[in-house]
């Protein structure tokens, strides 16, 4: 039987806490595979649960474990879940050891919760995938493994649970290892680690089990404490700008969190999508200026030159730019009850950057139970598919496999405001072929920046499916002094000339005028919040906060 680890010396916590690093992992599972029991045991044995919480579990009327303590009760949160005995949403748990602090994204395993599984996996470094030793690799395990790898998790820890119910048989373990290993071609090169354990009795969870003498690998906790995760700081430098901080005329800084990489004072940088270049003059923090900063620090950068930078732009090292494009292919997880409408205009959020986007094609949907491609013409909730996306304004992205921050996006419905889908960029059309921003914005004796200053607004392309709204919008923008026109083909030259271009769908059906007005208002507001046009009441206050 496993025993709990010794409590740590106090001095260790008080002196070394700030030295610990953070590891995020996800788990998924259904009612019977022992996931809640496993998490509950990790919490109790690492002292991540408090004594009064354990006491409440001990005195609870419910005990489904057949043991002294039902660990699963520690983690079942919402009233509905306690009644149904299932986990319906992503829950986050916390525990720590002297080496690491752990954030656990605990997600339900059932198919209808694919989206929750994806949500939990999106921030995780490691996925703990539970397999019931008696049942082998079920559909649910395959789904969890696929989604974890899809969301970019590099380490899958396969916890072969309930070994106590198969007499700790190495033959059972070997068979499951072989069965699971056969799936690896579909798992995007993720590292796979197998651990035989019993969450109920504690074997190989925290302490080594005497009942698995044939197993020489780490316990689950040892694995989690020691698994090497590629630090975000070792990748190319990416700095999405969240805010312009301008408390007075002598200071203009760009605030953001370093997504990946590191930056030093003096580095040559390029601002995307404008492709203007400058040098890092200062790295400012509340605690003082820094010579160097690494991901994932939140800092404020001051540039040596007066270049135009606003929310949603990205600062990168010159020579290491991300791709600027309007067309790309992506894997998506559809998350809303509202199905995908091909050609419909959605808002695409890419870090702090927001553009209008359309899904123009579904290449195929993936059946997550057997990894087979399916041909479909729409996407429903919990569907996973490869799609093609076109954006109205240029996007400066990376492939998701190279960067989990700048390769990721969500789609938002501009009317209901709901988050509809999550996307991972798989392939990008090159800037040259699509006439991307770098070429466009460098041409001519008159630069785009000069045109923006002269016009008092930025260029943009707006697509409206409602023709009445497009007409009204043109009038409204014109009255605000904007260089605006409507056309069926979005010519890049017009954007280069600094115009706002409105394209519209062909006239069909009747649209209610109240809806039209609302759409126009929303688009105007959208243009203001994105800094395309200046809000009327603050026109003389300048940029910044």
């Amino acid at each position: 039987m496993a025993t709990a680890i010794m409590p740590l010396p106090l001095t260790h916590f008080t002196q070394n806490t700030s030295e610990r690093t953070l590891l995020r992992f996800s788990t998924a599972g259904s009612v019977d595979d022992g996931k809640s029991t496993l998490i509950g045991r990790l919490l109790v044995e690492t002292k991540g649960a408090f004594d009064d919480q354990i006491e409440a579990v001990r005195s609870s009327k419910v005990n489904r474990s057949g043991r002294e303590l039902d660990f699963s009760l520690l983690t079942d949160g919402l009233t509905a879940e306690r009644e149904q005995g299932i986990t319906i949403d992503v829950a986050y748990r916390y525990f720590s050891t002297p080496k690491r602090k752990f954030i656990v994204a605990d997600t339900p395993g059932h198919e209808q919760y694919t989206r929750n599984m994806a949500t939990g996996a999106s921030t995780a470094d490691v996925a703990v995938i539970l397999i019931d030793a008696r049942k082998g690799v079920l559909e649910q395990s395959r789904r969890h493994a696929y989604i974890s790898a899809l969301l970019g998790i590099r380490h899958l820890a396969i916890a072969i649970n309930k070994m106590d119910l198969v007499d700790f048989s190495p033959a059972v373990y070997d068979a499951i290892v072989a069965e699971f290993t056969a799936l690896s071609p579909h798992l995007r090169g993720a590292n796979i680690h197998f651990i035989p354990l019993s969450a109920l009795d504690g074997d190989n969870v925290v302490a080594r089990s005497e009942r698995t003498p044939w197993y020489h690998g780490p316990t689950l906790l040892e694995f989690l404490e020691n698994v090497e995760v590629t630090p975000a700081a070792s990748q190319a430098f990416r700095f999405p700008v969240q805010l312009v901080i301008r408390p007075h005329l002598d200071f203009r800084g760009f605030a953001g969190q370093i997504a990946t990489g590191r930056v030093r004072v003096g580095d040559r940088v390029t601002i995307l999508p404008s492709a203007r270049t400058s040098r890092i003059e200062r790295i400012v923090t509340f605690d003082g200026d820094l010579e160097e900063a690494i991901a994932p620090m939140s800092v404020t950068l001051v540039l040596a030159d007066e270049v135009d930078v606003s929310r949603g732009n990205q600062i990168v090292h010159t020579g290491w730019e991300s791709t600027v494009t309007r067309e790309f292919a992506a894997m998506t997880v559809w998350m809303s009850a509202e199905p995908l409408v091909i050609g419909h205009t959605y808002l695409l959020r890419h870090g702090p950057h927001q553009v209008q986007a359309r899904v123009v094609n579904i290449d195929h949907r993936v059946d997550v139970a057997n990894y087979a491609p399916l041909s479909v013409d729409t996407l429903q909730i919990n569907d996973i598919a490869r799609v093609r996306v076109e954006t109205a304004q240029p996007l400066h992205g990376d492939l998701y496999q190279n960067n989990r921050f700048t390769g990721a996006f969500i789609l938002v419905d501009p009317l209901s405001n709901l988050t509809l889908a999550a996307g991972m960029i798989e392939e990008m059309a090159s800037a040259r072929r699509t006439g991307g921003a770098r070429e466009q914005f460098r041409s001519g004796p008159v630069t785009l920046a000069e045109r923006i200053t002269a016009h008092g607004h930025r260029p943009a392309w707006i697509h409206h499916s409602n023709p009445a709204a497009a007409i009204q919008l043109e009038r409204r923008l014109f009255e605000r002094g904007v260089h605006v026109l409507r056309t069926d083909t979005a010519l890049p030259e017009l954007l280069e000339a600094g115009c706002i271009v409105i394209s519209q769908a062909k006239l069909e059906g009747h649209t209610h005028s109240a809806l039209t007005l609302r759409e126009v208002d929303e688009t105007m507001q959208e243009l203001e919040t994105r800094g395309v046009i200046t809000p009327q009441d603050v026109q003389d206050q300048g940029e910044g906060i």
Partner: protein
Amino acid sequence: MSLSHLRSIEAEAIHILRETAAQFAKPVLLYSIGKDSSVLLHLARKAFYPGLIPFPLLHIDTTYEYPEMIEFRDSFTREIGAQLLVYTNDAAIADGANPYSLGTSKCCGLLRTKAVVDGLKHYGFDAALGGARRDEEKSRAKERVFSFRDSNGHWDPKNQRPELWNIYNGRVDKGESIRVFPLSNWTEFDIWAYIELENISLVPLYFAKERPVLERGGTLIPYESNVRLLPGEEPKMVKIRMRSLGCTPCSGAIRSDADTVTKIIEELFVFRRSERENRVIDHDQDGSMELKKREGYF
């Protein structure tokens, strides 16, 4: 090279604070004067430096709070140049709302839950930052960082927006709002370790001192000017400190000798009891925090 876990969650919280300032027209920071609020306020100063915090602080004053809290609130916010707003459910106070006659559940409903919802509506805030953490209570473990509230201020735990990576969707229609929780991934231990690391000022009630207290059903209630004596009660002097601050009649203290942050951290790992245990309201009924949250309690 990797950041320490405290610096990682610090960077995450600053990112969330900046997203809030950028995405909303009228955000506010709900300031409860407690230790978590104090950490949040400190992070907000960091997020916008060298600028000032670009949104006001709103304190929901139940009028049953410790006088020391109010003194601290006024002097500290003045010191850092923050804009402070105070809102009270005056109608309920005028009707004589108090925990003795209403019970803690109803009293909290009026003076906290309703006051938060009304206060936000009164000023027209579209986002409210709070210091709640997911490790505090089971139902909080599932709440998003950007948590949607309908036009009645209600939370629907079964219908939350998916939240992936560090992309937060703060789009709302008029009347709707988002509660933002930058400290979602912090534990009570992280809060104290960070307070020590950053030397953050706190209300003195958090530190052990001899104070007059009443013992009610195993809970130690500090005897303050606004606590009513029940028949037969007699305050006695005990060395105590508060683990979490609330209203005087409803938040219990613990016996303690910890009069510095370092001693509190040591004590936390001896005591090993969750901080909300001493709050009377959480144990009113099974799943009680979830019920309060659905109605809008922070």
